[in-house]
């Protein structure tokens, strides 16, 4: 009876919340108050797939849901991105019958890497994808090894891990475990022999701390690594990106599935690979997955096109306090062969909390913009002086750079500029201020 009422109340609150446009954590929060072990008292589906990691969680989950639903599976997933325990509770109870049986074939959970240990105590995933552990929101998260420990506490016996073999810290979760499924990339045409990054989080072995060596780097410290001392090394993969052509916008998985890319970044191809891996495990045919992923455009609004006067451009939503996210966007801009101008905005560091910390700007490899493809660089926002200071330590000619504290002034400046394409790079916290001043498409 308690289960019945708790689920009923959760569903009602969710319904009302939906009407007034409120977030999805409150119903779960109330449910957990009424019945703290409610998650342990519902009947769960055969597949409970969790996705965590610093970057790409939401995109990966969105892709997995897309593929599975296209192929006739019913999926419950936290599409609101409400990925702490309250949000997950709302999701589970919202998808279950009043007697407590989850109606979908698959429960798909995007989980915050810091809180997964609390959530999974009650709802143990059958499969657990860990995409990457990067320097991300360090003002809250401390550092990647700190987050590693939090994620390690969320891995319970009986869960199969699905790990990114190219991330040395993530791979460590698989050490000494049999039930691991590995995904990663073979040698790619875009690889480098040396590190391209402002710092090296792969310098030392995450297991024994001896120096590591890389035979190839895919990007930053993601690649084929090997410890010089303890034998820890990149694991062979079951699901593999076998080639990629970012100019053409094509990737190939497992030597036979070609996928054309709507977003030409290495980042995107790892998310696609993770989604492919999960879908294969659920039993979807590789050919079908490739079809569903071809030219797939994410619905979460991270890539938006716009116009300023007669100029066109793309907004590459990047995460403040996340240098690898920025590096990926900078790579996209610097690879634009027809030539582009770049706008970078840092106005509010976060939309969720206050901080004025901009140390992460020093971890971003802005020298990626020292490319003949890049014309003018316009910096804007409250922290424009910090941005300008950071840029003064790059090899980019300073006459290419202009600074505006006010975002509208930066937009006006671009309106009067050349006809080149524009890449605008900023975060969720600041993109609204920019989009309000330009014409969206």
């Amino acid at each position: 009876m308690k289960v019945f009422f708790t689920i009923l109340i959760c569903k009602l609150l969710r319904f009302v919340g939906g009407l007034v446009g409120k977030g999805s954590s409150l119903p779960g929060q109330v449910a957990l108050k009424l019945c703290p072990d409610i998650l342990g008292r519902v009947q769960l589906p055969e597949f409970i797939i969790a996705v965590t990691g610093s970057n790409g969680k939401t995109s990966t989950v969105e892709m997995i849901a897309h593929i599975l639903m296209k192929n006739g599976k019913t999926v419950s997933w936290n599409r609101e991105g409400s990925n702490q325990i309250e949000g997950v509770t709302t999701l589970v109870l919202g998808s279950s019958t009043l007697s407590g049986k989850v109606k979908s074939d698959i429960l798909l959970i995007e989980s915050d890497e810091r809180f997964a240990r609390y959530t999974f105590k009650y709802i143990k995933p059958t499969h657990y994808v860990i995409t990457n552990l990067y320097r991300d929101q360090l003002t809250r998260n401390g550092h990647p090894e700190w987050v590693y420990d939090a994620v390690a506490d969320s891995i319970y016996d009986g869960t199969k891990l699905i790990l990114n073999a190219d991330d040395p810290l993530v791979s460590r979760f698989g050490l000494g475990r049999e039930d691991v499924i590995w995904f990663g990339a073979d040698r790619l045409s875009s690889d480098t022999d040396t590190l391209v990054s402002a710092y090296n989080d792969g310098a030392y072995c995450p297991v024994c701390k001896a120096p590591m060596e890389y035979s190839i780097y895919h990007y930053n410290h993601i690649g084929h690594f090997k410890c010089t001392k303890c034998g820890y090394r990149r694991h062979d993969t079951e699901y593999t990106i076998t080639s990629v052509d970012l100019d053409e916008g094509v990737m190939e998985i497992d030597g036979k599935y070609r996928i054309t890319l709507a977003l030409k970044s290495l980042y995107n191809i790892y998310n696609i690979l993770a989604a492919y891996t999960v879908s294969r495990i659920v039993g979807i045919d590789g050919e079908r997955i490739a079809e569903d992923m071809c030219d797939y455009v994410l619905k979460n609004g991270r890539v938006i096109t716009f116009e300023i006067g007669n100029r066109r451009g793309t907004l590459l939503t990047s995460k403040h306090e996340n240098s690898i996210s920025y590096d990926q966007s900078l790579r996209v801009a610097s690879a634009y062969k027809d030539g582009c101008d770049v706008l970078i905005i840092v106005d509010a560091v976060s939309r969720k909390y206050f901080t004025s910390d901009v140390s992460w700007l020093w971890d971003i490899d802005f020298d990626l913009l020292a490319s003949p493809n890049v014309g003018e660089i316009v910096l804007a926002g409250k922290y424009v002086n910090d941005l300008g200071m950071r840029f003064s330590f790059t090899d980019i000619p300073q006459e290419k750079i202009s600074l505006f504290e006010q975002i509208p002034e930066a937009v006006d400046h671009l309106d009067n500029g050349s006809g080149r394409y524009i890449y605008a790079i900023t975060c969720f916290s600041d993109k609204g201020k920019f989009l309000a001043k330009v014409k969206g498409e």
Partner: protein
Amino acid sequence: MKILHLYYDIMNLYGDYGNVSVLERLLSQSGADCGVVKKSLGDKVDFGEYDFVFVGSGTEKNQKLVLEDLSGRAEGLKEYIEASKPALFTGNSFELLGKSITDCSGKAYDGLGLFGFTTVEQNKKRLTSDAILESDFLGKPLVGFINKCSEISGVENHAFTVRRGLGDNDGAKTEGIKYNNFIGTHLTGPVLVKNPHFAEYFAEIILGKRPDDGCLELAKKGYEVTLRELNSEN
């Protein structure tokens, strides 16, 4: 002039290298012939060769590796600091110079023992905060960010008074340590970029005269913005 950036590749969590970059520029633009030398675990280091020593913040594990390495260099570093030569240790790196560090499992490591304070780490809660720190040796407060999981006690020569942020331990209104021209603080990242007057402070010690601050114009504007933000936000 030679700046030593020690453990540049392992104590580098929050863009700490910006500190040596900006100091090198400030010294060069003030007419000095200046370069940065990077050294790490196992490298040969003669502190006497340098005019400034910097160490940044690292993970708790990396800090213990560095502790083992730095312990073998304790004498040289002690002589350097006793000779009133300037050094800046940010984040958890200055904990190395205390009496001991106790990790989250309760294991105690001997520090270099240059100072009498002790450090205790935990792994439950990351202690983070924007910060405003005041001192009697800088004309203006420092702004920045503190990111740690440890508390220290027994500091005799406090460097700063906390106006906003975290002190040495729960409830403490003091932060960091200053002895001669050595300064240790839990502020992380490019502290000398965020606080150009702090960069000038060290440059004046190194040069023996006021530096030419022309290259710090943007940093000075940035400092005022951050101070304003921190003062207006509660």
